[in-house]
């Protein structure tokens, strides 16, 4: 179980990265329009 002393700090680093990634995506307008992107799979590709 001593491995917890290594794994817990690693998990903290991962959490930190996740927080950073989330804030980055909010700042880059990824969450501004949640409606349109859900339809993108149904839309035609550009060059059709």
């Amino acid at each position, binding site marked *: 179980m001593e491995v917890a*002393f290594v794994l817990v700090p690693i998990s903290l680093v991962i*959490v930190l990265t996740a927080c950073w990634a*989330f804030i980055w995506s*909010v700042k880059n307008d990824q*969450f*501004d*329009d949640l409606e*349109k992107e859900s339809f993108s799979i149904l839309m035609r590709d*550009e060059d059709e």
Partner: protein
Amino acid sequence: MSEVVLEFEGEAGSVTDKKTGGQQVCRYCQGIIESPRHFVFVDGLAAPVCCPGCQRNFEMDQSSLIETQPRETMSVAEVAAFTATLRGAGPNRSGLYSVSILVPDIRCASCAWLIESSLRKLNEVADIKVSLADKKVYLELTQPGDLENVLITLKSLGYSPLPDQPNAQAEALKAQRKSLLSRLGVAGIGMMQVMMFSLATYVAGPGGMDPAYQTLFRWASLALAVPVTFYSASVFHTGALRDLRRGQVGMDVPVSLAILSAFTLSAVNTLTSGEHVYFDTVCMFTFFLLMGRFIEAGSRIRFQQGQDLIEHLLPVMTRVNDDPEVYLPTHEISVGTLVYVNAGEPYPVDGVVTRGNSTADESAFTGEVTPVLKTVGDRVLAGTANLDCSMQVRSQVTYQDSVINQLSVLSRDSALYKPRFALIADQISRYFVAAILGLAGLSGLYWYVQGMSDWILVSLTVLVVSCPCALSLATPIAYTIATTRLREMGVAVCNGEFLERLARVNTVAFDKTGTLTTGKLRLLETRLLSEMALMDARQIAASLEMGSRHPIAHAFGAGTLEVEDLEVTPGKGVQGVINGTTYRIGDPDFVWSGGPSGTKPEQPDEYSTWVLLAAERPIAWFQVGDDARDEAGEVVSGLQALGCEVCLLTGDRSRQGVSLAESLGISAIGTGLSPEDKVGEIAARQAQGEVMLMIGDGINDAAAMSRSDTSIAICPVDSFVSSAADATLLANALIPLVATVSYARQVRRVIAQNIGWAVAYNMIVVPLAVAGMLAPWMAALGMSLSSLLVVLNSNRLGKVS
């Protein structure tokens, strides 16, 4: 297949669709269509679609043939005018120029797809993003201001691009939403991690875990709780600080206090290996509370957008000369300026048509989707769309006085208005918060004395559970939504108390002329009483009546004689001097009291409205009349079905009023009433406990309107929004009246539900929390759910049809 032909044939087909029933849905995306303007052909029949995007997609599904759209052209001046209004930002880090364009007719994902795929083909467009929520196109251009092709493409696709005007309030709200979302995300991630450590501790039970691991988990939890406490929860701390600086105890104070004290206590216990840590509680508090704030902010943004769109209806630049084209900023257009409006463009000014025939889409103001015919002499409103042909319009008022500006000022004012409910709720909240702080301290002390180890948790739970957020949200959010919805129904609310009072109304008093009747009075007959020629008598009457705003005055048409010493007695008549002779026209008693000599002439009959013209001697009788509105009967019976007593108060003393009332099923009628009599009549009814709604044109019954509990003006022909009434019906029709009354009652019901829920919730949970029967996370979740319930309940008001 050109688009013009499509629309034309489709329009004809859709008339029957509309009559036969219900709402129309888009053939492609199933979205609801208010006014069908785009069509596709299915088996030779026209079927409506919501937008050019859906039309394009549908046609592409039907055949592999992709037709090229006709190229629209756009003049250099028009593009220059458009570009001039854009913010002149320099290149960004990638050397590109960012531009945003507002396209109000973006409706669904098909539009976004069509615009994105069409514009991306242009060389000057490096990147493009269409936002469905904002109805905006965000572009990255390789050259600054290189917009001509972009604009022409948008127009060719059938959209009407507008320059995007920065709006400080909307931007601030969006920034607030973003900041809340970041904080919410951090709190959520933090909460999940801390819960993992806590869970292990709970499962192991007291003493079940090696102290070394327990210390490790505590330190890890501390590390996770730091950003949650000081980043995510900082909105509560700054709010609390702001309140305390102002010497108030706001709602953020107990929340901030709870979070900070729980964190500090846990941190101290971690350092000193104390008995309890509450990091999981800290994170959960923060997460659930932020969730409530975030949903509230989202709801605000949605309704802010509704308010803003009306201002976006107006073009920024106005064409004041056609050849060569000259543009002026719309808000600088002065009264009397001739402006030019092409088909498909919005009218920039309130004015009168001087050249051209076309139809206008006035649905933004009236809720009525059928286009209105416009020809020379007709009134057009800024912000309504010119549909068919080029028009020339003479502006009648400045931008400040235009209906669209008055509306946005009014809606801003009514948003600031705090109804009685809200003021009481605010008062209660203030004392309530102070009481909570005391209660939380006392219950903590009690349990400490009782020897409970988790006494601090009880204190914190009381702090959080009793926060009166839902109570203070209950009214404002319902009012914001209701005001916006009413405007969509064609009712402009000018007084915030309107809805509150309207909900209590049990008697509706109508004015007759111009309210229950069309108000378009006609001169039916002239009976001469002197030697004067018929046309001369009419000319004198017309010239005198030019000074009056009473509906009867319109029946006489335009007069050309010069009138001196004009005196208007409201509801009675007019006196003036023409070529040295004093004339009086109006109500026979009024005219006679002015001192003509001889015997008063007998009124030709008692059944219709007669106007007397006299100088020294009587000159002529004029008979005027108008017809009942088509919808009057329906509206009267609708109001009666809602349990309202309907009465008719008219200045008219003829039989016409009585017969009109009888045909409409109105039993209470007062005829021959002066404005003072009307006030007296209303006061008498109020004395009997009736709550009065007065409906009139807002001009000659202004006094009666202000005496009534509340009033609605029906939009008069020559002015736009009435200031005398609490609300104005913008379409010249009574149709929205019944819906408005029942809507007001529904708003009252929703607010009562909100307040009832908020009070009941606090009454139940506060005792439980004091008794130590609630876990802290339940308190935080309960409080957020309580606020959420209030917001969702209020949102129902936005969906009423």
